């Protein structure tokens, strides 16, 4: 194809969008909404993965002492823990210290703890244990659990399992969301392009009568779909950036306890996100255009059919 023909076809594609600007805007809106939901599902999934990784890197767990154990028994628990092996550090945290630290964490909301002050079960005496070899983490936790007067242990592995389940759920929902929204977006783009074709059916008819190839007739409509997809991708990227920066990051950083370590920086995922949006937008736009024109050329695109 000559460069002048290619330039002409691109120009025609852009002209199609302008001719049908309201429907084009509606398409960009709907496609952007679809891409936004897909993008948010991706960001949730990335953040969960990040949190999981962070937790997996924490080689610390807590062993709680039975209620009613006397100070000698509590001390013995400490010695027994050190004798288990693979222990880098074992720090005793009394219930008073634990209460103090939770109060500090809650800041102005510490009054919420008042009613638990006398409850020994609420925050029992405990040992904060750091393991040497992370590979032996589960084994070490098991041995500590067997020590007399240890009521239970809590490792981040339990939280990690829960988060793992959430990630699986989010991934599944995200995948189905993607499939459903992909089909919806495809349908919307196909209809927009179809409307343009209806507006330009006289031109298509003349093109066919003078011997334009089907590829030549198709290209402006594919260009139209791709441009709609690209606009949607760039617009969605901007909206996602704004939402993530203003809502997610600032809210989480301001939250009690600071969840900042779990939160992925937008700049870390921006390239993937932009590439994903552009690819999804272009693919949806291109296929939407192709579906419409294929059906039109097959069913109605005769030289004599000009409604």
């Amino acid at each position, binding site marked *: *194809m000559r460069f002048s*023909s290619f330039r002409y076809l691109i120009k025609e594609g852009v002209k199609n969008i302008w001719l049908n600007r309201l429907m084009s805007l509606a398409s960009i809106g709907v496609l952007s909404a679809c891409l936004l939901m897909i993008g948010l599902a991706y960001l949730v999934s990335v953040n969960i993965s990040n949190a999981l990784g962070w937790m997996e890197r924490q080689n610390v767990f807590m062993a709680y002492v039975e209620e009613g154990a006397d100070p000698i028994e509590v001390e013995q628990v400490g010695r027994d823990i050190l004798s288990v092996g693979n222990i880098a550090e074992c720090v005793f945290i009394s219930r008073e210290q634990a209460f103090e630290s939770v109060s500090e964490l809650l800041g102005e909301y510490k009054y919420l703890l008042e009613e638990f002050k006398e409850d020994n079960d609420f925050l029992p005496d405990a040992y904060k244990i750091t393991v040497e070899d992370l590979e032996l983490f589960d084994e070490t936790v098991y041995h500590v659990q067997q020590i007399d007067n240890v009521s239970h242990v809590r490792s981040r592995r339990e939280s990690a399992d829960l988060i793992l389940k959430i990630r699986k759920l989010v991934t599944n929902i995200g995948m189905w969301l993607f499939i459903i929204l992909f089909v919806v977006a495809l349908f919307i783009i196909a209809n927009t392009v179809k409307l343009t074709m209806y507006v330009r059916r006289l*031109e298509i008819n*003349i093109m*066919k009568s003078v011997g334009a*190839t089907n590829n030549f007739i198709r290209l402006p409509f594919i260009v139209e779909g791709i441009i709609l997809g690209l606009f949607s991708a760039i617009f969605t990227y901007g909206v996602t950036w704004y939402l993530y920066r203003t809502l997610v990051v600032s809210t989480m950083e301001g939250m009690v306890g600071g969840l900042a370590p779990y939160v992925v920086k937008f700049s870390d995922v921006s390239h993937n996100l932009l590439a994903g949006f552009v690819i999804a937008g272009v693919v949806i736009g291109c296929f939407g255009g192709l579906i419409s024109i294929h059906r039109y050329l097959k069913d109605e695109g005769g030289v004599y059919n000009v409604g």
Partner: protein
Amino acid sequence: MIEFKGVHLTYNSGTTALVDVNFRVMDGEFVFLVGPSGAGKSSIIKLIMREIVPSAGEVLVNGYNNKKMKKRHIPYLRRTMGIVFQDFRLIPHMTVYDNVAFAMRVTGASGSAIRKRVPYILDLVGLSHKARSLPCQISGGEQQRVGLARALVNNPSMIIADEPTGNIDAQLATDIVDLFDEINRRGTTVLMVTHDTKLVDRHKHRVIELRNGCVVSDTGGDAR
């Protein structure tokens, strides 16, 4: 050259449009195709343009066999002919120049070829002074001349005109057919479908008459 050999055509609806049609139009001929509505004239044009295929028989046009040719070759068959419609079919938002240039652009012609060819064709049909006008700013006769210019611009060996004078008055119709005559004298084959018997009588060319899908008379050629 156009050749119909024992052509039968029955549409999917069950309507029989053509029955054993045989005729041959040689290169450089001028042929009127006449007959009442429903006689099968449009079906013949559709077959020539390979919009449809015959139920039986063969249609040969400029070296292409309608039934045996591949679908991807249809555009190249159509580039060997120019078609003129009764209702002009000009693109309303394009100027006269752009309407003619459009036919070249969509067949992949270069910008310089378009700039060279379009003014020449507009001059041939006497519309150079209307190049920048929109279709709504010119008369019916002029619109049909734009249609003819568009059909001629890709330099086809044959012009198929489907009732080209159907929407214009008698004097303008004569001018249009004179123009077709001039184009035919330059070597282009012309096949014109018409209802207008006066026009046919005035211009002494071969006439093929169709009735109920059959060729009932042919004033020339070697119709079998």
